[in-house]
């Protein structure tokens, strides 16, 4: 489709590049902080997959809703969530976007319509459909965009959500980030079809859409088309974007189950520098691009310092916000 597609203007593409770089540098820093032992628990990075997140983020309206997974730092950030508050959540600080209650797997910023990072595979797909249902019912014109992985295509919730979304023609775009692996197992080893999402679209009366998830322009064009379809009442879409995570599944994983050549090959197609070079070739001046890199790095540095300086949560906040009254009483 790359040839027939309309590529966005340079300004938009520079904005996409900035987003990719924000995701990249934010997560590189997050990784460093894990190594320093400042981030407890686990964490799942999207380094290598930024083109999918940025291509879609740039195509959304400010009130469109994003639903993502534990691998959702970048998706949440690109909705406009304050970087320091996200970093603070990773560091378990009181200033964290969820006050420290969520952690790395649950970054959420409802104010920016980042409707949650979900850690149970598949669960957020029917939830995203429900948010889209409310948008349809209330006529808000919002679209829900739901990101999930290749491995998620084999769980029941995937099936139920897609069927419901189609029969109700809901304004939701389901985006499968196919990074070829579930945790440590190749998706090809556990899936009855070659393209876990695209080859199943027909089972839900949907168009089969398979794209290069490392090409931000392709992703953006697909995002514009599918989001526009959803907003205009054309119903849901299922997009499979093939990409790759540069690191392991989570901090605990060195990713050794992947053939060296495969890793090397994908690293050579790192979407961030590749996009920079393409933009320069298309007329952006190198200085502008490098300026973006500098700005973003400065923003990440500032956010890191702010988060590190923040206090840890007051233990008294443990029993707050279970209920809408702010408390957690189960008895009188």
């Amino acid at each position, binding site marked *: 489709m790359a040839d027939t597609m309309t590529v966005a203007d340079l300004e938009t593409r520079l904005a996409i590049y900035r987003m990719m770089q924000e995701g990249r540098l934010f997560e590189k820093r997050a990784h460093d902080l894990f190594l320093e032992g400042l981030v407890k628990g686990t964490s799942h990075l999207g380094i290598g997959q930024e083109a999918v997140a940025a291509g879609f983020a740039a195509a959304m309206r400010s009130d469109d*809703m994003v639903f993502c997974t534990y691998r959702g730092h970048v998706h949440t950030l690109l909705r406009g969530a304050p970087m320091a508050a996200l970093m603070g959540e990773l560091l378990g600080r009181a200033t964290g976007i*969820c*006050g*420290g*209650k*969520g952690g790395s797997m*649950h970054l*959420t*910023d*409802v*104010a920016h319509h980042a*409707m*949650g990072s*979900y850690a*149970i595979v598949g*669960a957020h*797909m*029917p*939830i*995203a*459909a*429900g*948010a*889209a*249902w*409310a*948008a349809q*019912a*209330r006529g*808000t014109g*919002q679209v*829900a965009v739901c990101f999930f992985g290749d491995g998620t295509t084999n769980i*029941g*919730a995937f099936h*139920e*959500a897609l*069927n*419901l979304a189609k*029969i109700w023609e809901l304004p939701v775009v389901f985006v499968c980030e196919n990074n070829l692996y579930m945790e440590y197992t190749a998706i090809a080893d556990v899936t009855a079809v070659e393209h876990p999402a695209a080859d199943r679209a027909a089972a839900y009366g949907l168009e089969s859409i398979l794209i290069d998830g490392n090409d931000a322009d392709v992703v953006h064009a697909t995002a514009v088309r599918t989001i526009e379809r959803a907003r205009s009442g054309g119903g849901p879409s299922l997009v499979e974007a093939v990409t790759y995570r540069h690191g392991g599944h989570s901090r605990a994983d060195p990713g050794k189950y992947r053939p060296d050549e495969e890793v090397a090959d994908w690293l050579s197609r790192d979407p961030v520098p590749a996009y920079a070079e393409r933009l320069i070739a298309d007329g952006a001046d190198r200085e502008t691009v490098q300026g973006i890199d500098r700005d973003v790095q400065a923003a990440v540095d500032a956010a890191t310092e702010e988060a590190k300086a923040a206090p840890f949560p007051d233990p008294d906040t443990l029993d*707050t*916000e*279970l*209920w*809408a*009254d*702010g408390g*957690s*009483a*189960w*008895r*009188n």
Partner: protein
Amino acid sequence: MAELTYREAVARAIAQEMERDPTVFFLGEDVAAAGGVFKTTEGLLERFGSERVRDTPISEQAIIGAAMGAAMNGLRPIAELMFSDFFAVCWDLVANQIAKARYMTNGQVALPLVIRTANGGGVRFGAQHSQSVETWMMAIPGLKVVVPSTPVDLIGLMAAAVRAPDPVIVVEPKVLYATKGEVPDGEVVDELGVARTVRNGEDVTVVALGAMVPKAIDAAGHLAQEGISADVIDLRSLVPLDVRSILGSVERTGHLVTVEENPRLCGWGAEVASIVADEGFFALDGPITRVTTPHLPLPAADVLEDAAIPSVERIVEGVRRAVS
């Protein structure tokens, strides 16, 4: 004042809230065109239209997920799970998602939604369509749970549930659908978390829930003839739990008997007993007795099912044992 069946009360309650608030939507399997397999939602489609009253596929994860997502984006959905046994096929959405979303996000996500369901035995449907699962939900932080035992309570508690800013599970004992009760005209709204003393007594506190309430009242009648006066409490709500009413009664009677339809282990009666054995210990004059369904799946044959679910006789014996 009108006399309604518990079944009719369900439709009345949902209609009252849909009438009042245009953001209240209702979805489930066979609930719209067919009016529900228990005929509890007849007329709602005709009255509120197919946008707000929706038939779904057999996809409980999608039903409950849709309700959650809709609640996150401005609706106040009421979702039906036809039989409460089906909580098992969407338990992740209920226990891991709906119950935890607000807390995990430190209050960013509000989920004003209701899940209503037909619960419990007594209708010979067998082990997979007869369970009392109210304690599954009670055990999950973040869910409120009510179990109305009369038509008027059903309407009032359903209304309170719909208006609540938190997720509430409304558990309807299916064996009560055909029972009747007086319901005042006009709007009926109740309060979550408040138990009701349905019979006053001095010798023993009997705490019952849902379909066990009429049986407990019956048992109290028999016991009165033996000179045992039972204070019968209809718990009505498991979360929030009206601990004060229970302790207050036990302080007076010195004896506690819980009557549960759920299987024995970890039932709500165990929680109530553990609270009283702590905070009410010095008021107790004797052992706490629990009358429950044995720790078994429910059999289908009537002779066997009747032997399983607490009967008036077993409640009477339980109380005798407690006060002896």
